[in-house]
């Protein structure tokens, strides 16, 4: 088999293109190669008659790579034997069992029998690395993916190796719990069961779960995730690599904040005055309650585009005077003109981050900035009053304006020496309310014009961009003065409220004493789509069924519309809503083309070939 690859492509990547498996532990396509595990040994010619690591050797013109010579096969089997010398072989109780490269490789490339007769080395285990992650040092094969990830990708030296030789072990710095918001990715990275999720621990086996690729509902970045279910429960969330957005990383919020989906407290039945009721009765009570009153509606950050479209129709029609607030929204206006897509950060020669703690607000954009800076050589400028994790890069140019003076500080960057070379990416947030956003936005636009850069407004709420697209993104304060409110998600009723309808998946203290309570579906159940901060529409794929009497939000909104006497509210299904929304709202045009309902299963552990 022969293959032509771009210059610099590593042998292990070239092998993927011709579907030859070269087993790897230390190599990961998003991390720099180190050649530590020695599992990817192949023979190359022309070259010395000895095995060479495929993960550190770039392909060359006319190079012949042999993976099946006795030397190469034996060398790989030897390494697998070594990995098992001290491995506890506790696969039956290991969470990795079933999706474990060490298992798979040992079956495919290892010796059929074991020569190991010595007693194994032991470590204390399991060690809790944080509230979410457990470390089993005996299972560890010391591939250093986790420590390298922490160093290279997140710029936080929280994980390290202690001792040396066969006694080496992974440990957190000074045995302190991991604090990084990106810690969960090491669970996906670990090629054995050494790093496991304490949230998912002992919950299920991989072969016992169904999974679908979907979109994360926790912020505006729109990382792709894989949702795993077992017996009608969402049991795990892992990353789903999409190089245009997340490159295979997700933050801990996206990974671990799913347990409310399975909560025994889940609301399943509507309540009227605290008593269970039918949907019919509950919606009647709701419509009566808001009738003739000044209506305020609080929206959850993960409201779907379809629900926004229907709500827009309601607010254009019978609920004309209603005020709408969106959870976690920034004060930023919809972007004017072209914005910078996340993937184009890779090509930037200089990046300016303004008035936003990206690690907190848009975590995966933060990692993309770090990659552009440390791996691709972009210059980094930060305008923010506080200390950010981006300051860990020694060459970060950090301007610390007083709160409220960021706009002037941004203007002063015009003509800065680090911005001489383009393309320049300018990322800006709203300073969490400390800034005059209009002035700041104007300053950013002026800076972009002066240096020829493109801007990326950093919205916070998951579907803030979609809500802005249908002009439904007010603030919680906007609800003051309303005497009837519908609280969809974690909103507080204003003091003036005479009538409160709560619409949520779990009971909340804020909703105590609501007149009407409607159960809502979660991101794992609902159909629909989100618009991420770049304006990209991505479809959710429900992993759990909506079991009656639970109903999806768009369905409930349709019924409300019909009850209020609106025409054309009797949609035949969500596709019908999507088609109409795609014609009505420019931002939602991609809704006309939803993806195939059954996605192809994707491998979880191996990434695609590196370009």
């Amino acid at each position: 088999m022969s293959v032509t690859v771009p210059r610099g492509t590593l042998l292990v990547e070239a092998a993927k293109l011709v579907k030859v498996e070269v087993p790897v532990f230390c190599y990961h396509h998003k991390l720099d190669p180190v050649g530590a595990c020695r599992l990817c040994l192949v023979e190359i010619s022309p070259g010395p008659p000895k095995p060479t690591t495929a993960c550190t050797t770039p392909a060359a013109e006319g190079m012949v790579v042999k993976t099946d010579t006795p030397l190469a096969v034996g060398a790989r089997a030897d390494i697998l034997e070594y990995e098992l010398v001290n491995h506890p072989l506790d696969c039956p109780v290991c969470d990795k069992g079933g999706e474990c490269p060490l298992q798979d490789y040992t079956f495919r490339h290892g010796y059929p029998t074991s020569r190991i007769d010595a007693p194994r080395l032991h470590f204390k285990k399991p060690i809790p690395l944080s509230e979410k992650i457990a470390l089993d040092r005996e299972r560890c094969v010391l591939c250093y993916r986790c420590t390298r990830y922490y160093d290279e990708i997140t710029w936080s030296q929280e994980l390290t190796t202690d001792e040396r030789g066969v006694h080496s072990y992974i440990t957190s710095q000074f045995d302190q719990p991991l604090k990084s918001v990106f810690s969960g990715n090491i669970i996906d990275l670990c090629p054995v069961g050494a790093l496991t999720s304490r949230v998912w621990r002992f919950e299920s086996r991989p072969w016992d779960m169904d999974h679908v690729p979907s979109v994360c509902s926790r912020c505006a970045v729109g990382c792709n995730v894989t949702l795993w279910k077992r017996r009608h429960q969402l049991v795990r969330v892992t990353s789903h690599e999409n190089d245009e957005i997340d490159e295979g990383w997700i933050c801990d919020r996206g990974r671990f904040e799913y347990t409310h989906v399975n909560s025994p407290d889940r609301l399943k039945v509507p309540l009227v005055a605290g008593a269970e009721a039918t949907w019919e009765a509950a919606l009647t009570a709701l419509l009566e309650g808001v009738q003739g009153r000044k209506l305020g509606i609080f929206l959850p950050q993960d409201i779907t585009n379809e629900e926004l479209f229907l709500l827009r129709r309601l607010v254009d029609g019978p609920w004309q005077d209603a005020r709408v607030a969106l959870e976690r929204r920034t004060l930023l206006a919809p972007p004017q003109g072209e914005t910078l897509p996340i993937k184009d950060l890779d090509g930037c020669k200089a990046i300016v981050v303004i008035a936003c703690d990206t690690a907190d607000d848009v975590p995966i954009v933060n990692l993309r900035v770090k990659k552009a800076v440390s791996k691709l050589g972009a210059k980094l400028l930060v305008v923010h009053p506080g200390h950010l994790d981006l300051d860990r890069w020694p060459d970060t140019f950090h301007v610390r304006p007083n709160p409220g003076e960021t706009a002037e500080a941004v203007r002063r960057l015009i003509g800065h020496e680090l911005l001489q070379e383009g393309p320049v990416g300018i990322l800006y947030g709203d300073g969490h309310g400390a800034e005059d956003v209009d002035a700041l936005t104007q300053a950013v636009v002026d800076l972009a014009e002066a240096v020829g850069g493109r801007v990326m407004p950093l919205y916070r709420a998951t579907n803030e961009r979609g809500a802005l697209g249908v002009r439904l993104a007010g603030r919680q304060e906007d609800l003051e003065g309303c005497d009837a409110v519908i609280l969809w998600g974690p909103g507080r009723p204003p003091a003036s409220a005479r009538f409160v309808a709560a619409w949520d998946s779990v009971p909340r203290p804020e909703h105590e004493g609501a007149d009407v309570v409607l159960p809502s579906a979660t991101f794992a159940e609902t159909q629909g789509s989100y618009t991420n901060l770049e304006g990209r529409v991505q479809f959710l794929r429900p992993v759990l069924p909506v079991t009656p009497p639970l109903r999806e939000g768009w369905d409930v909104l349709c019924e409300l519309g019909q009850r209020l006497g609106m025409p054309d509210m009797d949609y035949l299904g969500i596709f019908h809503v999507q088609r109409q929304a795609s014609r009505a709202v420019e931002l939602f045009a991609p809704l006309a083309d939803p993806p195939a309902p059954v996605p192809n299963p994707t491998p979880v552990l191996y990434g695609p070939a590196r370009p």
Partner: protein
Amino acid sequence: MPDNVRPQSGDSRRDLRGSYGPARHHLLTSLFGIEGLHTLSVYRDRGGYSSLRKAMFEMAPEDITAEVKASGLRGRGGAGFPTGTKWGFIPKGVPGPKYVVVNGDEAEPGTTKDRYIMENSPHMLLEGILIACYAIGAHQAWIYLRGEYDGPFGMLMAAIAELRAEGILGDRPLERDYPLDIQIYRGHGAYICGEETALLESLEGKRAQPRARPPFPAVKGAWGRPTLINNVETLSNVPWIVAHGGAEYAKFGLGTAKGTRLVSVSGNVQNPGVFEIELGTSFREVIMEMAGGPPPGRRMKAFWPGGCSAPVLPEWGLDVSTDLDEVARAGSMAGSGGVIVMDDSHCMVRAARRLLQFYAHESCGKCTPCRVGGNWALRTYDRVLEGQGSEVELGTFDAIQESLQNGRCLCALGDSAGFVIASTMKHFRSEYEEHCLEHRCSVEEQVVAASA
């Protein structure tokens, strides 16, 4: 050994162990033993720093590299890579700093030559470093010094302070606009720090673990910059080469290995020490004559010709010459020149076990074969020596030695551990079989019988 001169009685030199003093082939050690040689004034009185002056005022940087190439000098740290070629690998005309890093982490068991140089003539080393800096276009040199070397550290610090005071180090050394500086970095006591890329990691303040090559340090070394890494002894040869010319140096030695080298002889010999020999001298001369051979009544059994990382040679190896290529043809390595001699009172299985203990302890843990293999072998040796061996253990030794060698590991440490097993099994298989199959040790029985 006609002109192996130890100072005659009445000479004012200090008494050192080994060979030094005015002999035709004493290029490095001719001045050793002179009282006060470690001071700048005495060293300069004896012609010191004239080579640096010559290099900086009479020669172009390329000429110096050419002379070193012509000398046929090969690295004295272990691998024996041609020094001039290595200097030629440093890219020219790239913007930004380049560095010279001196490998003074002499941790190879049985090797003490670098310490011998640094304690006797620190200025000879410093002069070599400065010439190398000038030749490759570096302004900063680092001496990575073995952490345990307190004596050499003090002497080098004093010597560097003298150079600073005299203006030979600083912004205008010898009145020329070519800033030069030397810093010392003390290691923390790990054998792996002597491996050049692990040394660089350690120098940068990280865990000392080797890097995958390429990129080689000449392209991407300390702090990602082009870096020349040479051994202490290698650089100490440079002043002589510059003073007398590469062709003159090449008159010493044979074949592709030119010049002289320091061998440190230790173990069961009557007169251990550091000897400067012309390359090509046979090991018989080195061990039996210079070092006095094994103690009376004992028989030479085996020796490690180049530190314990080189495969062991049995008695017949005495007739091998110290020429780098000839040692390689005999199935071993000239390595760092640390000759460890064992007489017939030593059981080779026990010796191999002790060395494996060293390699298992010093494995950095980065690559799998070395990390696990060394420890596995050690535990297997322990079982065999406790009399629990069998045919299986012989197979295990074979499997481990094979999977440690020949590019399977990230650096040469794993190979060295493999050499220990492979070479002792190759030359002394009968002892292994005795231990594994018969659960006895004939060497021990003989020693016990002799002492009874």
